[in-house]
C-alpha cells in the first residue's frame, strides 16, 4: 500500500491516468444515479435493483452482440432502451405500483427481492463468468505511452453526456417531463390539475430502467459485467444520490465523477479487491458526515 502511494508520487502522469479513467467511468455512474434520483424524488421509491438493471442492460447488449446479427454494442443502445423500458413498465404494473403508497422499508425490501430475482436469472442464463463486449476500437497513447486512453472510454463518456443532455431537455421541455416534475413537487396538486399520476409513475420507473440499461451497455464495453456486480452499482448510485441529493443534476454529475476518480485511486493504492469496500466505506462516510451536519441543526437524516 505504501509502495503504491510512493509510486504515485514518483510518476505524476500515473495520477493523470487514474484521474481520467475515473472521470470517464464516473460519467456512466452518473446515469444510474440520475435514474435513482428520479424514482426516489418522484415516486419515493428506493430502488435497490438499480444496479441489476444496469447489469441487465449490459447482458442484453452482450446477447445482441453474440447473436447472428453481431450487433455492435453502440448500435444496440436503442434496442436496449426499448427492451428495458418495456421491462420497467411491466415491473411497475406488477410490483412497484403496489408499494408506492406504503412505508419506506417496503419499497426497499421489495426491490431487494427483485434484485435477487434478476441477478439469479442472469446467473442461470449466462453463468457466473465475468463478461465484456469487445468494441474493437483503438487505444490512444499520450506522453510517450505513459497515459493510455481507449477510444471506447471516450466515446462512452460522450454517449453518457449526450444521454444526460437528452434527459434534461426531455424533463424541461416535453409534456411528460413537465408532468413528472409537477408530480414530484406535489402529487396531489398534480392530480387535481388533471395529470394522470399513475401514468407518470409508470413512465418514470420505465425511463429509469431504460437509463440504467444504457449505462449497462456502456459499462459492458469499457469494463466488465457479471451477474452479481449489480449490488455494487446500486450502492454507488445510493452514495451519489445521498451525497448530492435529488433534483440536483449538477451535484449528481459532480459526485459521480468524483466517485469514479476516488474508486480508481483506491483501487490502485489498496488493490482491486477493495473496490466494493471503498464504495461502501464512502457510503458510510457520507452518511456520517450528513448526520454530523444535521446534528448541528438538531435534525436527523431522513
Amino acid at each position, binding site marked *: 500500500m505504501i509502495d503504491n502511494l510512493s509510486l504515485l508520487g514518483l510518476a505524476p502522469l500515473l495520477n493523470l491516468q487514474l484521474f481520467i479513467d475515473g472521470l470517464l467511468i464516473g460519467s456512466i455512474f452518473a446515469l444510474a444515479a440520475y435514474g435513482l434520483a428520479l424514482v426516489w424524488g418522484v415516486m419515493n421509491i428506493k430502488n435497490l435493483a438499480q444496479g441489476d438493471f444496469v447489469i441487465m442492460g449490459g447482458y442484453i447488449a452482450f446477447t445482441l452482440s453474440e447473436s447472428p446479427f453481431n450487433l455492435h454494442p453502440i448500435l444496440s443502445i436503442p434496442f436496449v432502451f426499448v427492451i428495458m423500458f418495456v421491462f420497467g413498465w411491466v415491473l411497475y404494473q406488477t410490483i412497484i405500483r403496489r408499494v408506492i403508497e406504503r412505508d419506506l422499508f417496503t419499497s426497499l425490501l421489495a426491490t431487494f*427481492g427483485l434484485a435477487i430475482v434478476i441477478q*439469479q436469472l442472469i446467473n442461470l442464463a449466462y453463468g457466473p463468468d465475468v463478461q465484456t463486449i469487445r468494441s474493437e476500437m483503438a487505444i490512444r497513447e499520450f506522453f510517450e505511452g505513459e497515459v493510455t486512453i481507449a477510444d471506447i472510454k471516450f466515446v462512452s463518456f460522450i454517449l453518457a453526456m449526450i444521454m444526460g443532455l437528452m434527459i434534461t431537455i426531455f424533463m424541461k421541455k416535453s409534456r411528460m417531463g413537465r408532468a413528472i416534475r409537477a408530480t414530484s413537487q406535489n402529487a396531489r396538486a398534480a392530480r387535481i390539475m388533471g395529470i394522470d399520476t399513475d401514468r407518470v409513475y409508470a413512465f418514470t420507473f420505465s425511463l429509469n430502467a431504460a437509463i440504467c440499461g444504457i449505462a449497462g451497455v456502456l459499462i459492458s464495453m469499457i469494463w466488465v459485467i457479471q451477474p452479481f456486480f449489480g449490488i455494487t452499482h446500486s*450502492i454507488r448510485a445510493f452514495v451519489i444520490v445521498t451525497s448530492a441529493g435529488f433534483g440536483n443534476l449538477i451535484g449528481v454529475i459532480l459526485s459521480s465523477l468524483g466517485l469514479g476518480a476516488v474508486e480508481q485511486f483506491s483501487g490502485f493504492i489498496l488493490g482491486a479487491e477493495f473496490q466494493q*469496500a471503498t464504495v461502501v466505506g464512502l457510503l458510510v462516510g457520507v*452518511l456520517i458526515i450528513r448526520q454530523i451536519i444535521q*446534528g448541528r441543526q438538531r435534525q*436527523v437524516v431522513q
Partner: protein
Amino acid sequence: MKSKTNKILFYAVILLAGIFAPIIFPAYTFQLALLWMMILFALTWDILGGQMGYNSLGNILFFGAGMYICTIVQIGMYYDVAEYTAHFGAVKIDFTPYQYFSGLALGLVSAAIASLVFAVIFGWIVFGLRGPYFAIGTLGVAIAAGELVGAWDYVGGGGGISVPSYPGEPDDRALFFYALCFISAVSTFVFLKWLYSTRFKLALNAIRDDEEKAEAMGIHTNRYKTIAWSFAAFFLGISGGIFGNMTGFIEPLEVAFPTVTFGIFMVLMVLLGGKGTLWGPVIGAVLFHLIKEITWTYLLGWQWVALGVLIIINVVFFQQGIMGWVQDKWPDLFGISVDSVMAAGEEENSTKEVA
C-alpha cells in the same frame, strides 16, 4: 384457569419437542440446530425491526463479530493466533477437552460482551439515520465489516480460520451444538418475553409510533435505541460464536458476514411471521426454514429465484405476516391463545401500524 394450564402444556410440549427432536431424528440434528438459530435471528431482529420500527439490514454484523471474537479467544488462550492463522488451517492442532471447553465458554462470553460494545459504538454512528438511510447505512456497515475482516491477515484474511475441532465423537459434537443452539434460542425467547412485559417495550413502541413525540414526552430515545440494539447484539454474538464452532471453518464473506443470506433471512422470517409480535418471528422462522430446505432440495439452481419471489410476494401482498393475518381473521381467538390478553391488545395496535 384453563387457559393457563393450556399455556403451560403448550410450552412443555415445545420444550420436550426441542429436547427429543435430535434423538428421534438424528440425521437432521444440524438442520434442527440451524432452525433454533434462525428463531434466534428472527427474535433479535424483531427487537428493532418490529418493536422499535428501525429496519436494520446489518444485524448480521454482530453475528460475524461474535464468530470471529469467539474463535480468536478460543485459539488465543493457548496458541499464538497469528501463527495459527498463517497456516490457513493446514496444521491441525488438537485441543484437549479441558482447553476446548474452557476456550469455548470464555469465547462465547467475550463474543457476547464484545458484540454489545460494538452495538454501542455503531449505535452512535447509525442511530442518527432514519428510515431508508438507516437500512442502507446498516447494510453498508455490515458489508464493510466483512470486507475489512477479509483484509486483516491476523485473523486469516479472506482465507478464513479453521476453528478448533471438537474433542470427541461426531455424534456427540452434533448433539452438543444442538444443545447450545437450543439453549441460546430458548433463553432469547424467555428474555424477550420478560422484556416485552416491561415498560421498556412501551418505550420502544413509542419510538416506533412517533419518535419526536416520544422524545418530547421525556423518553431518552437514543439511550433506548442503543440498549435495544445491544440486546440484539448480545444474543447474535453468542449465536455467531456457536455457529462458527458448528461449521468448523469460518471465513469473512460467506460464513461470518453473510449479508445477503442470513442477513436478509432474518428480515424475511420476521415479515413472514408478523413483525412486532413475540410469536410471529418464531412461526416465521420455522416456516421459512421449512420453505428454504424444501426449495433448496427440490428446486436446486432455482432456489434463489424462489427466495426472491418469496420476498416480493411477502412484502408486497402479505406484509402483515401470519400473526397479523390470524389477528385480523379471528380476533376473538387471541384472547385464549398463547398470548395473554394484554399482549393481544398491543398486537392489534401494531398490526394497524403496519397496515
